[in-house]
C-alpha cells in the first residue's frame, strides 16, 4: 500500500490562469498575369436604305426606306487577368508564465484542463478560414495541443499552430508556436474582360484582397502542479 522506496506524486498547487495569443500574419507578394484570346464573331451591319422593288404584274417600281443588314466578321479580344499570392515562410513563438510554484519548488508534473475560444480566425486564399479543432467546454490539455492546421492542395501540411503547457524552473508556462512554409496559390482569382474591341489589355489589379492568416485565441487553464516524493 505504501512503499517509502517508491515515490508518489502529490499536488503542490491548484490554480486557474488565463492567457491570450494572437498568431501573426505573414508577409506575402501578389503577382499578376494575363492572357489575351482573339475571338471572331459574325455580326450584321444594318443601315436604312432606299430599296426599290418592281411589281412583276404592273411593272411599277416602288421605293421605300428599309433596314438592310449585311453579315460581317469582326474580331474581339477576351482578356483574362490572373492573380497569384505567395505567402512567405514564418516561424514564431510566444511564452507566457501561468503560475509560480509555491516555495519555488521544482515541480515534476502538471495536469491541465483548458477552455479555449477563437475570436479572430485566419485563413488563406486557397481554402478560406483555417479549421480549428478546439472542443467546447473544458478538455484535457496535458503536453501540447494542436490549435490550427492548414494544408496545400493534396493535403501536405502548410501551417501548424500548437500550444504547450510545461513546467520549467519552478514556473508553469505556456508556449504558443506557429510555423508555416512558403507557398504560392497557383491560378487563383481570375478576372475576365470579355469582348474588348482593343487588343491592349486592361490594368490587372487585385481581384481579391490577400487573406490574413492571423488568428486570436483566448484560454482559461485549470492547473494542478505536483511533485514526486
Amino acid at each position, binding site marked *: 500500500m505504501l512503499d517509502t522506496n517508491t515515490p508518489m*506524486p502529490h499536488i503542490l498547487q491548484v490554480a486557474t490562469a488565463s492567457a491570450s495569443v494572437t498568431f501573426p500574419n505573414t508577409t506575402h507578394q501578389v503577382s499578376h498575369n494575363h492572357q489575351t484570346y482573339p475571338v471572331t464573331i459574325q455580326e450584321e451591319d444594318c443601315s436604312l436604305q432606299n430599296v426599290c422593288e418592281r411589281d412583276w404584274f404592273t411593272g411599277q417600281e416602288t421605293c421605300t426606306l428599309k433596314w438592310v443588314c449585311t453579315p460581317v466578321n469582326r474580331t474581339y479580344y477576351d482578356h483574362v487577368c490572373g492573380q497569384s499570392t505567395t505567402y512567405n515562410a514564418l516561424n514564431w513563438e510566444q511564452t507566457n508564465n501561468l503560475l509560480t510554484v509555491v516555495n519555488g519548488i521544482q515541480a515534476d508534473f502538471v495536469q491541465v484542463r483548458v477552455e479555449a475560444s477563437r475570436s479572430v480566425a485566419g485563413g488563406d486564399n486557397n481554402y478560406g478560414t483555417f479549421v480549428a479543432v478546439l472542443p467546447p467546454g473544458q*478538455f484535457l490539455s496535458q*503536453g501540447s495541443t494542436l490549435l490550427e492546421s492548414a494544408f496545400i492542395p493534396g493535403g501536405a501540411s502548410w501551417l501548424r499552430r500548437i500550444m*504547450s503547457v510545461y513546467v520549467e524552473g519552478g514556473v508553469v508556462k505556456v508556449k504558443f508556436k506557429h*510555423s508555416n512554409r512558403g507557398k504560392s496559390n497557383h491560378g487563383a482569382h481570375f478576372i475576365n474582360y470579355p469582348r474588348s474591341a482593343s487588343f491592349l489589355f486592361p490594368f490587372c489589379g487585385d481581384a481579391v484582397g490577400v487573406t490574413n492568416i492571423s488568428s486570436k485565441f483566448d484560454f482559461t487553464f485549470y492547473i494542478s502542479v505536483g511533485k514526486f*516524493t
Partner: protein
Amino acid sequence: MSKKLVADGATGAVAIYEGGFDAAFTNPLANLNRVYFHSALDYVGVTLIHSGTIAHPARTASGTNDKYIGSNRHPVNGTQEWTMVNHNLGYVPHGILVVGNDMMPGLAPVQQAGSASARYVALRLTTTQAILREHWYTFNDNLPAANITYKIYLFTPPILPSGNKTLHITATTMQASRGKLNTDLRYVRTKATSPAFHLISGATADVAAGGLRMVMPSGTVINDGVYSGSFAGGGSRGCEI
C-alpha cells in the same frame, strides 16, 4: 539512513521522514528531499478507471475536385462525440486519456491515411461526464472505419481531513491524518517499466517548416512528413496505481 515515523495526535499529522531532520515533519514543503510520506501532501488518487471501445466510422474523401488543382480532392472535415462514461463526480476532474501505451495529449491523432487525412481526439470533461470528441479531415484519402479502445483515469481532488483518527492500521487498510490518507483510495506511484500511464512535465509536440511532430511519453513518434526539426519529446514519468 534511518526512517522515522511520527504521528501527532494533536494535529493529526503523520509522516515518515529521514531521521535527524525533524524540520521535514513541521515544514514538509521546504524539506521534500527528506520526506518519504507526509499527510500534509495531497497525494494523487484515482477515483475512476474506465475503458471503452469506440467504433469510429469511415470518413470518405470529398467527391469534388480541388477548385484550383483539379487532380486533388477538396478537403472536408467534421466532428463527432461519444459519451465515454457518466462519472457524476459533481466536479470537473483532472484525468488522463490512454490509447495502448500512449498517454494522449490534447488533440492527438489516432489514425492517419495518406499525407493528410487524419482523425484527432480530445477528452472533454464536465461535472458529470467524460466525452470523447473526434475531429477528422480528409483530403485525397479516405479514412477507413477503426475500432479504438480508450482508457480513462480520473483523479481525485485534494482530500480534506475528516474524522478523528490520526493513525489507524489494520491488516488490509491504513488511514492517517483524519482520513486525508486512506489506502482504500487508489493512489498513484511511479513505475519505470510498462507503466499504466505517464504524468508529464514537458511539451509533447513541436512545429517547424510548416510541419508537426508529436512525441508521446511512451516514445511513440508521429510525423507529418513535413516537419524538419529535431524535437525528441518532453519530461514525463511512468506511473501505476
